[in-house]
Structure formats: C-alpha cells, structure tokens
C-alpha cells in the first residue's frame, strides 16, 4: 500500500530543506541547550532574601536582639540605606526596593521588662502576594520564637523553676530531589516544551509553505498518497526530536547533575509517542491554514501556549480553577511531563504505572494524524 521509495524521496527533500536552513539548524540544536542553561538556574519560586527596612525606635539590646533574630534567619536582608528613616523606607517600599518595613516601638524593651505586652508593626508591600504571604508567615514564626524566650525568662524570674516547655518543630525530609534543585524540576519540563516547539511549530509550516510556494500542486499531481506525504514529511522531524531529547537529557545530567533514575528505553518510547502527538497537531494546523502566519498563530495558541501553561511545567495545576483543570486533561504535554518527571527523579516507576499516559498519547497522535491525512486528501481535489 505504502510506497517506500516515494516516502524516502519526500523524506530526503524535507531533510535537505531543514539542513540547508542554517537558522533552523541552530534553533533545533543550539537553542535547547541555551534554554536549559538559563532556565535550569532561573525557574524557582523560592522566597528568600526578602529586603526588609528597619525602624528601631527603641534601640536597646533587646530590640537589636530581635532584629538580629530576623536577619540571621536567612530569609531577610536588612536595607541599610534607610535605617530608622520612615520616609525613605516608604519610598523604597513603593519602588519595590524593599518588601517589608519593621517598626519597633520606642517602649519595646521598657514594656517587656515591666511585663507588659508590646506590639511590633509590619508594613508590607502586598503587590506581590506570594512573597508577602510567605514573608509575613516567617516573621510570625520568628517573632513567636523570640517571644517564647522572653516568656520563659519572665516565668523563671517570677520563681517558677520549670525547664519543661513543649516545643514542636518540623523535621523536613525531601524525597527525589533532596536539595530542591530547580534544575531537577525544569529539565524534564523543558524537554516537553522544546519538543513541542521544534516538532509542532516546524511541521505546522511544512504543508502550508508548499501551498504558498505553489509546489503543493506539483506534489499532488504525483502519485504520492496523503499517508505517504505525511510519513515522508514527518520522519525527519521525528529524528530531530529524538536527537533533541537525548541532547537535553545528557546536558541536564552532565551539567546540572539531574538524576536519571529511570530507564532510557522508557524515555525514548514516551518521547516518540509525544513527538507523534506534536507532529500530528502541527500537521493538522498546516493542512488547515491558508497562510504561514495563520499556521504559526494557530499552532502557537493551540499547542505551545497550553503546553507551557496547562501542563504543570511552571504553574501547579492543583491551584487552578476546576474548569481549567478539566482543559488540562486534553493537553498531551501534561501527561508527557508526568512521565518525564517520574523517569528522571523516581527510580521505582515502571511502564505499567504509566500505561494510562501511554494510551492517551497514542490515542491523541493517531487522532491528529488521521484527521490531517483526511484534510489533505480532501484539499487535493
């Protein structure tokens, strides 16, 4: 049914087109590494080093001890330029130079020594909500720890000789990625994004370009069938995609020391399935679109953006509204990402555990490839 000579001819033609275009070669092979290098370091929600302005109206050993407790926690960096200057601190807060101002009242140590309650004021920039929530949370914990010591001293000074004060602390254990290295999380995700970019975007242009250049009619006048056309045109991209997977994987392992605890065969198997999905989607866009820019825009909005936004690559799916979460089930990258993170970071994961993902990816790629073959066939006439 399929004529392999014809497929090979198409394959060769497409391959030569890719290889001759130096920029696409750079994009296909250099950009993935650049992306890994940059994003491997950058993508972290970690909230540390929060800049804090200090207004210490008391300036006693007790208030300095309190400030020292905050600064030495490692979560806050004092903003020295505006020490004790409210106006400058507010300016810095507006300019996003600092996130919090702590105001210690002038009777801080006096009242505490007398056994009275004191209130410390925090002025917080809420414009970046996440930082503010975590920052305030830490400040509460640090303050209550500081207060505990004062209470204990006070109680002792009143003659109660108890050493027994309950204290509960978390003992944090992190599995699979002990140092919470963002590279361990980003590298698997980037594989999915890069493959979407390379596979879907490049293929989205293959047919429409022929159509714009007028070579499409020539191809259609040959005995090539639509299945042969699709296979011949897609194979080069499959090869490129697989090379990219290996490139990014090895780079992630060698440069960022991302662990690879799973099986390379599992990785290749799922990568192949995912490339098929991406190619199928790109191919469909290409056969529908009339112009290259349309194909690009359609592919961008229907494949690339969802892969970035709805796959769990950067934004946790759990915190999205339920309706949006439903959408995410239709995004192939979501499944592929699950698989990738499991293969890289969890050793005890087996193909059997991933059969749902495999079935879904297969179904999607078959669907898109069949539909695009249909569309191409129809358009032939």
């Amino acid at each position, binding site marked *: 049914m399929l004529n392999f000579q014809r497929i090979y001819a198409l394959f060769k033609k497409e391959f030569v087109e890719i290889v001759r*275009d130096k*920029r696409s070669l750079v*994009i296909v092979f250099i950009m993935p590494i650049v992306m890994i290098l940059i*994003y491997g*370091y*950058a*993508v*972290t*929600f*970690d*909230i540390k080093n929060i800049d804090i302005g200090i207004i210490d109206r008391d300036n006693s050993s007790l208030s300095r001890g309190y400030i020292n407790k905050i600064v030495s926690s490692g979560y806050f960096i004092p903003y020295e330029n505006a020490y004790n200057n409210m106006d400058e601190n507010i300016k810095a807060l*507006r300019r*996003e130079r600092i996130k919090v101002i702590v105001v210690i009242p002038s009777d801080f140590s006096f*009242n505490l020594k*007398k056994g*009275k309650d*004191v209130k410390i*004021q925090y*002025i*917080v*920039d*809420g*414009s970046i909500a996440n930082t503010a*929530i975590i920052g305030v*949370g830490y400040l*509460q*914990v640090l*303050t*209550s720890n*500081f207060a505990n010591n*004062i*209470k204990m001293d*006070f*109680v002792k000074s009143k003659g109660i000789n108890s*050493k027994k*004060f*309950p204290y*509960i602390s*978390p*003992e*944090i254990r992190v599995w*699979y*990625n002990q140092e*919470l290295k963002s590279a361990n*999380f980003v590298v698997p995700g980037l594989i999915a994004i890069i493959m979407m*970019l390379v596979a879907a*975007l490049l293929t989205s*242009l293959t047919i429409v370009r022929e159509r714009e250049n007028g070579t499409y009619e020539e191809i259609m006048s040959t005995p090539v069938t639509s299945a042969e056309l699709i296979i011949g045109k897609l194979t080069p991209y499959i090869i490129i995609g697989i090379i990219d997977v290996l490139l990014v994987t090895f780079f992630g392992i060698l440069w960022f020391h991302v662990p690879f605890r799973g099986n390379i065969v599992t990785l290749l198997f799922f990568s192949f399935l995912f490339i098929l999905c991406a190619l199928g989607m790109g191919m469909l866009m290409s056969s529908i679109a009339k112009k*290259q*820019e349309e194909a*690009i*825009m359609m592919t961008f909005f229907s494949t690339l953006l969802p892969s*970035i*936004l709805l796959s769990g690559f950067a*934004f*946790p799916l*759990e*915190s999205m*509204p339920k309706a*949006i979460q439903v959408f995410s089930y239709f995004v192939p990258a979501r499944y592929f990402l699950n698989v990738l993170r499991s293969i890289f970071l969890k050793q005890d994961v087996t193909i059997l555990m991933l059969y749902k993902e495999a079935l879904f990816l297969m179904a999607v790629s078959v669907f898109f490839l069949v539909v695009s073959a249909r569309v191409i066939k129809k358009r032939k006439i």
Partner: protein
Amino acid sequence: MKTSKSRILKIFQKEILHIIRGRMLPLLVVAPILQMLVFGYVVTTEIKHISIMVVDRSLSSYSRLLISKFSNVEYFDLKSVSKDKNDIQMALTKGDVKCVLSIPENFEEKIKKGEKTSLQFITDGSNSNVGSAAINYGSIIIYNFSKEIFSDKMRQFGNIIGHIPDITIEERILFNPELKSTDTMIPGIIGLILIIVTMVIASLSLVKEKEYGNIEQLIVTPIKPYELLLGKIIPYIIIGLIDVVFITVAGILMFHVPFRGNILLLLLLSLLAIFVNLGIGTFISTISATQQQAMISAMFFMLPNMLLSGFIFPIKNMPQIIQYITYIMPLRYYIVILRGIFLKGLTFMELLPEVTALFIYGLVVSVLALKKFKKTVG
C-alpha cells in the same frame, strides 16, 4: 516632506487593508481577550491544594487538632489519614500525594511532659516549586501549632503569677491588603499579552514582503527605508494601544483588579513599551529570511520574557549572571510600570528609571532595525 508623509500613508493604508482582509484581525483583537481570560485563571504563583497524607500514630486529641490545622487551610488538601508508616513510600512514589506529615506515637506524651518534639514532614521534591511551597506552608502551620501549645502552658503559669508579656504583630499590608494573587498577576499578564501580539506581528511584517518577493518592488519605488518601516509599524502601534485598553478593561472587569494610578500615564508608558516591542519585532524581521525563522526567533525571545522578567519568578533569587540577562527583557521594566500604576498609583517621577530604560532600549533596537534594513535594501 509632504510627499514623504503621503508615502508613509500609502504603506499604512496597504498594511491596514492587509490586516482587515486577512484572518489576522480576530487574532489581534479577540485573542488578547481570550488570553486574558485563560492567563488570568492559570498564571498564578500561589500554590494551593497541595495533596497531603497524614500518618497519625499518636491518635490523640493533639494529633487530631494538628491535622485539623492542615485540613482547614486551602494550601493543603488532606487526601488520607493512615496509621501505617509503610504507606508513605507508595503514596509518594505513585504521586497520589505531594507531602506527608508523620506524627509519632509519643506525640501527646511529649507535649504533656513539656519536651521537645519533632514531626517528620516529607515532601516530594520532584516538583521543586510545589515541594518548597509545601515546606513553607507546612512549617508555618507546625510552628504556629507549637506556639499555641506553648501559650497553653504559659496560661497555666499565668494563673499562678499573673500576666505574662507577649509580643504581637500588627501587619499593615499596603497595595493589596487581601493578598490576592490575581492583583499581582493581571498587570503582568497585560504586559505579556502585549508582547505576544505586537512583537510577533512585527517580526512577521517585513519578512512576509521579503518572502513574497514584494520587497524588490517596494525598493524600486521612491520610498525610503524609514518611511516603509514607519508605514508598516504605525498600524500595529494603533492595534497595540487598542489592545492595551481592551485587556486593561477586561482585566479590571473580569478579575476586579484595582486601578489606583493615572490611566493617561498608563497609556503613555504602554506606548513606550509598544515602541520597544515593535522595534524588537522589526529587528527580528530584518534579520530573518523566512516567516518560520522570524516566528521562531520571536518565540525564543518571548519565553525568557515570561520567565526572566520577574513576572512569575522573583529575579532576586536568580544567580547573578541570570540577573544580568533579565536586564535585556523589556517586560522586566514594563511589569514594574504596570504593577506600580495599577496597585500603587506610582507617578511618572517614581517610574523614571524604568521609563529611561525602555526609552533607551527602544531607540537602540529601532536604530539597529533601520540600519540592518537599509543594508538589506542596499
């Protein structure tokens, strides 16, 4: 000069016709609003509903109280409570839960005796962001619980010796008192959408003519390179400005984001941002031979704008070298402008550093684009 103006006008008319006749108009006007809708719900740095399993071997009123602290906040979704430590391995490996709180048998006993106790809090680090959020929230809950227990004990002493001093915190949260994540994200999303629309379109504008072979025809006419560029770009400036208004209004109506600044200042500074985006897009267009190249180059510039601009990930925590790279991202400056005007009502003078940066940026890319284009034409 008059003829120059009319030449620009002709190119302008041609480009406008091109936009209206093609299928691009809906993409330019409808897509941004759809994007606002999707981004608005999706793009959040707030991590909620982290699935958690509790292994409770204490089975005491204290352990139940602690568990209720975890199930009462929206940061955690309590999936299951188990008595068996061996369940931890399976639940984390299969990905059923992202973290596990393990309460030891002697938990109640130790609290009653007034001894120090530690609770194991195990997180799945494979998603480092969810992992670190779980640690942050989990630790804060556990420490607050500890504080409560401690205060109970203190109260007992208080009954004997009278009032015990305490330090309380009074928080004044400015600009976003309810700490809504949408208030943080929507202004940034406006900037991102503006980049997607303007930069991508501009990157295609010239290369399209090149690919169709129209550029030679244009060159033999008396049109000067800058006239061609201006005529081609002005329509997109207009569309960009319309989009800014659209997505700003959509953002305010759909997500109830406050707008505390000056709308004219926002439009003026958005014009500056559009100028920069279009400059970059046009530059990409001049150095690309095909639409495919232009598009992919634009895409590769857009992704870092999303990730390295402080839009999602705090720049402060990036390695120094990467922090230098963030200065190349126009969104880095525009986002400060947007958040500043929306939430803080900043004035022009307060935004001067960002305005200056964008202005210089725009000038440099425009000159580069024009030079490169002249060379191509020559």
